[in-house]
C-alpha cells in the first residue's frame, strides 16, 4: 500500500477511454462498478464537450460478484452496437474488474459474433501502467488491429503519396492544448509543403487507418502517447518518425531538420529534387516567432540568472526546461517529472540545463523541493500552482494534469513558432516585472502603511451577543463582511440593538442576500 494524497497521472482505463473517445464513432464499454465512469464528467466539464461521451459502463455489482458477468457484458456490447452503430467497441476493464479475473476475452469474442461493430478488448495491465502508458498501448493496439485487418482484406494502402505527407500521432481528448497544438503543427507542415495524411486518434475514423502507411513519415509530438504506434509502423511499414517535440525555437528547428532528412530520402526519386528548409527556419526564427528577439531584448535581461523550478509530464517539463535555460538564460534549479517510466530519457535530455533532477509521483516531495529551492517562479502542473499559492511563489501552468482554465478557448499552442510566442508570455508573466522589481527592492514593498481599522466606520449602537458572534465566525471569511453589514442594516431598520443568533438569518431572508 502507498499513502497517496494526489496523483499526477490517472488509472489505465482513463487512458483507454481517452483514445476511444478521440476517434470518430468508437465506443468504450467499461467493465466497472457504479461511479467509475467519471471520465465522462471530466470530458464533459473540462473540455466542455457538446456531445455525449461515447463511454458507458457495464455495471459490476453484487450480482456480478456472485455469478460473474455472464450475459451482462455481452448484452451491453450488443446493445451499444444496435443503439449507436459504432465502427469499433472497446471493452475496457478497470482496476476493480481486473481482479475478478473473468475471461473477458471470451465474452468479447462472443459479443463480436453478434455485433456489426469490431470489438477489441483493451489489453492493459491495470496495476502496472498508468493513464499515459495505457493510452499509448491502446492506440497501438487499435492501429495494429486495423492494419492487420486491412492486410487480410487486401486493402492496406502502402503507396506513398505523391507529395510529401505526414501522420500526426498522439493528439487526443483531455489532452490540454492538444487541439491548438495540432492546428499549429498542421500550419507548420503546410508552410513546409507537407500534406497531412492522417491525424490519430483525434477526429479520425478507424476504417481509415488502412491509409496510414501512405504518409512519408510519422510525427509524434508528445512522448507519452504515440511512440509505440510510431515504432510499430516503423517495424511494420518501414515508416520513419520524428519524435523531437517542436517546442521552443531550438527544438522546432531541430524538428524541421529531421523532417528535412526524412523527406530527402524519397524526394530525389519522387519529387526530382531535395528540399532545404534552412532559410524558412531562419526567417521564422528571426521574424515570425518573437521569442528569439524577446530573449535578446532588455526585458528578458532582468530574468538572467533568476531561479525557476520545472515540473510536469516528460515532454513539457523537458521542453520548458530547455527553453528556460537555453533560450532565456534563466537558472533552472530543479527540473522534474512524474513519468517514472521515462526517467532515463528525461535525464539524458536535460544534461547541462539544470542543477538537479527530481523524478517522483509524490507531490509532497515536489512541494518540499520547491520550498527548499525558493525559486522566483514555478513552471508546473495545477498541483504546483497550488503549492505556489501556499508559498506565495508565482506559477505558470504547463500540462498536465491541468484544470478547466487550461482548456483555453483562445488559441494557445505550445509547439511551433506561434508556440514559442505563447511560451515566452507564459514564462515572462509570472516573474515580477523588471522595473517593479527594482522599485520593490528599493522601497521595501507596495503597502507600507499599517491598516488601523478593518472597516471604514465603526458602529457603537449595535452589539452582537456571544452566540451570534460565534455564528458569524462560522461564515466563510470572504462573505463574512457582507453578511455582517447586511445584518446590521437590517437590525437598524427593525430597531434591534442587540443582535441575537436569529437576526442574521432573518436578515438573510428579508434582504435577498
Amino acid at each position, binding site marked *: *500500500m*502507498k*499513502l*497517496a*494524497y*494526489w*496523483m499526477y497521472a*490517472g*488509472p489505465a482505463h*482513463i487512458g483507454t477511454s481517452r483514445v476511444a473517445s478521440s476517434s470518430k464513432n468508437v465506443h468504450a464499454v467499461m467493465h*466497472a*462498478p*457504479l*461511479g*467509475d*465512469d*467519471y471520465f*465522462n*464528467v*471530466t470530458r*464533459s*466539464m*473540462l473540455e*466542455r*464537450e*457538446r*456531445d*455525449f461521451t461515447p463511454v*458507458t459502463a*457495464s*455495471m*459490476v*455489482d*453484487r450480482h456480478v*460478484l456472485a455469478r460473474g458477468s455472464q450475459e451482462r457484458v455481452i448484452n*451491453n456490447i450488443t446493445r451499444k452496437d444496435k*443503439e449507436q452503430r459504432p465502427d469499433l467497441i472497446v471493452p475496457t476493464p*478497470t*482496476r*476493480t474488474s481486473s*481482479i*475478478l479475473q473473468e475471461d473477458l476475452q471470451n465474452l468479447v469474442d462472443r459479443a463480436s459474433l453478434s455485433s456489426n461493430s469490431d470489438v477489441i478488448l483493451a489489453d492493459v495491465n*491495470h*496495476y*502496472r501502467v*498508468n493513464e499515459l502508458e495505457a493510452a499509448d498501448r491502446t492506440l497501438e493496439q487499435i492501429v495494429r488491429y486495423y492494419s492487420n485487418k486491412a492486410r487480410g482484406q487486401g486493402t492496406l494502402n502502402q503507396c506513398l503519396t505523391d507529395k510529401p505527407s505526414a501522420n500526426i500521432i498522439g493528439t487526443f481528448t483531455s489532452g490540454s492544448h492538444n487541439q491548438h497544438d495540432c492546428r499549429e503543427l498542421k500550419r507548420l507542415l503546410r508552410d513546409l509543403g507537407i500534406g497531412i495524411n492522417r491525424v490519430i486518434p483525434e477526429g479520425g475514423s478507424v476504417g481509415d487507418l488502412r491509409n496510414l502507411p501512405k504518409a512519408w513519415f510519422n510525427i509524434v509530438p508528445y512522448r507519452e502517447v504515440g511512440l509505440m504506434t510510431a515504432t510499430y509502423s516503423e517495424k511494420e511499414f518501414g515508416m520513419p518518425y520524428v519524435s523531437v517535440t517542436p517546442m521552443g525555437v531550438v527544438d522546432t528547428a531541430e524538428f524541421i531538420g529531421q523532417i528535412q532528412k526524412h523527406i530527402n530520402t524519397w524526394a530525389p526519386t519522387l519529387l526530382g529534387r531535395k528540399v532545404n528548409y534552412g532559410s524558412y527556419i531562419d526567417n521564422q526564427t528571426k521574424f515570425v516567432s518573437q521569442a528569439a528577439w524577446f530573449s535578446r531584448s532588455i526585458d528578458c535581461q532582468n530574468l538572467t540568472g533568476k531561479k525557476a523550478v520545472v515540473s510536469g509530464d516528460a515532454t513539457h517539463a523537458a521542453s520548458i526546461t530547455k527553453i528556460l535555460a537555453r533560450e532565456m538564460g534563466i537558472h533552472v534549479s530543479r527540473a522534474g517529472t512524474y513519468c517514472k517510466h521515462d526517467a532515463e530519457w528525461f535525464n539524458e535530455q536535460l544534461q547541462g540545463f539544470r542543477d538537479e533532477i527530481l523524478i517522483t509521483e509524490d507531490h509532497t516531495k515536489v512541494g518540499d523541493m520547491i520550498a527548499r529551492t525558493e525559486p522566483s517562479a514555478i513552471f508546473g502542473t*495545477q*498541483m504546483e500552482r*497550488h503549492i505556489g499559492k501556499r508559498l506565495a511563489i508565482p506559477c505558470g501552468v504547463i500540462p498536465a494534469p491541468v484544470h*478547466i482554465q487550461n482548456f483555453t478557448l483562445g488559441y494557445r499552442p505550445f509547439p511551433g513558432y506561434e508556440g514559442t510566442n505563447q511560451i515566452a508570455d507564459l514564462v515572462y508573466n509570472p516573474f515580477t516585472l523588471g522595473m517593479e522589481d527594482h522599485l520593490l527592492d528599493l522601497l521595501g514593498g507596495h503597502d507600507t502603511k499599517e491598516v488601523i481599522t478593518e472597516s471604514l466606520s465603526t458602529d457603537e449602537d449595535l452589539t452582537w451577543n456571544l452566540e451570534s458572534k460565534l*455564528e458569524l465566525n*462560522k*461564515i466563510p471569511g470572504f462573505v463574512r463582511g457582507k453578511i455582517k453589514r447586511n445584518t446590521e442594516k437590517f437590525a437598524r431598520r427593525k430597531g434591534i440593538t442587540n443582535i441575537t*443568533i*436569529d437576526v442574521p*438569518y432573518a436578515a*438573510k*431572508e*428579508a434582504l*435577498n442576500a
Partner: protein
Amino acid sequence: MPIETVETPTFECETGNYHTFCPISCVAWLYQKIEDSFFLVIGTKTCGYFPQNALGVMIFAEPRYAMAELEEGDISAKLNDHEELRRLCLQVRKDRNPSVIVWIGTCTTEIIKMDLEGIAPKLETEIGIPIVVARANGLDYAFTQGEDTVLAAVTHRCPEHRISSGKQCKTERKLLTDSPTRQTVSNYCKSGSNNHPPLVLSGSLPSTAASQPNLELKRQSIRVSGWLPAQRYTELPSLGEGVYVCGVNPFLSRTATTLMRRRRCELIGAPFPIGPDGTRAWIEKICSVLGVKPEGLEERENQVWNNLRDYLDLLREKSVSFMGDNLLEVSLSRFLIRCGMIVYEVGIPYMDERYQAGELALLRDTCSRMCVPMPRIVEKPDNYNQIQRMRELEPDLAIAGMAHANPPEARGINTKWSVEFTFAQIHGFTNAKDLLELVTRPLRRNDSLRNLGWTNLSV
C-alpha cells in the same frame, strides 16, 4: 385534504446503467464537517483519481484525506493487510494526529475480501486512535449513500445515553402517577429548557445550515440535544433508549435503521426539511411526536413563499425531469411541484419506501393539492433511455449529473447540475431562496440569451 382522488405512486425500475458519483465522494464534505477526522480511502488509483479529478478541486491535496493505494502485492496478498494499514495509519497519526481515522472500504477491498472490520479494532488498540470502517463502494451504493454508510458506522461510536433525565424520568413517572398534571412530570424531567425527551438530528449539514433547524425547533421550544455527525468526532451525541432521532436528508436510511435497531432510538419519520413546505411538515411531525403544539408555522411558511414570488413566477407551469443521481430527487420534486412546476420523471438511484414514507405521502398530497398527476418514479434509471425520453418530452429543465449536463445544453435543453443540490445549503426556511436560485439559474441565464439565435449548438 382530498386523499381519495390520489393515485398511489408507481415505481419503475430500469437497468441501472446510469451515471452518478462514487459514494467515496462523501469524504469531500465529511472531512470538512468532522474537523478532527482523517479519511483514508483504501482502494486503487481509480478511486483516488475520482475525487481529485471529477470533483475537480485542489482541496483534495489537503492533508485530511488520503488514499491507501493498493498495489499488486496487496491484491495478490503478498503483503499483509494488517501490517500495511498499521504502517500507513502510524504515518497519519504522526503527521496529523486526528481524533478518528475513517477507513473507506471500496469495491476492491470488497472483491478481495479485505477484513477491514476485523483489522480495525486490533489496530485501534495498537495505535490508540479510533478507527471507523465504512464500506462506501460502487458495488452497493450511489453518491450520497456514502455519507449514509459513514454515519451508520459512526452511530456505533456515540456514547450511551444515560442522563438522569431519560432513565430517571421513566422511573419517576411511575412514582408520580398520582400527581396532578402531566405538566409537573415534564417540568420535573426537564434538564435545562427541554420539556421533551432528547432529540438527535442525523445528516451532515454545513455548520451554518445546521444552526437553522436548531433555531426553528427552538422557536417551538424544542431543544436539539445533538447532531450526528457533530462538528468534532469527540462531540458525538449520546444515543440510546428514549432518544428520539430524525433525519434531515432522504439518503440516510441505513443510519436510521442502525439508530433504531442497534441503538434503540425512536425514529421520527417525517418529510425532509427541504423547501418551506418540507420544513414546515418536518417541524410539525417532530412537534407532534414530542407532544409540542407547533406555533406560528403556517405564517412562517406563507411568509417564505411570499418572499419567493419572483422565482415562482419563473417556474410556474414549467416542466422538469430528474435524471437521478443523489437521492434528493423526491424531496426536490415535491418542492418544485408545490412551486407550480410539472415533474415528468423522477429518476432516483435507490428508493427506500419506508424511510421516505413521510416524503412520499407529502408528494402525493402536494400533487393532489396542485392538481397534477404523480410523476413517474424511476429507480435505477437507464441514462440512454432517459435521454431518449428527454428528447421526446423536451422538458423546460433537466436536472442531470455532470456527465450529462453540457450535451443537453448544446441541444437546447436547460440543464442544472444535480450535484449542486448536494453541495449547496438547501435545508430549512431560510435557504428556500438559495434553492430556487439554483433551480432558476439556467432559466434566467438562458432567458437572457434567448434572442441570440444560438440555442441549439450541437453538431
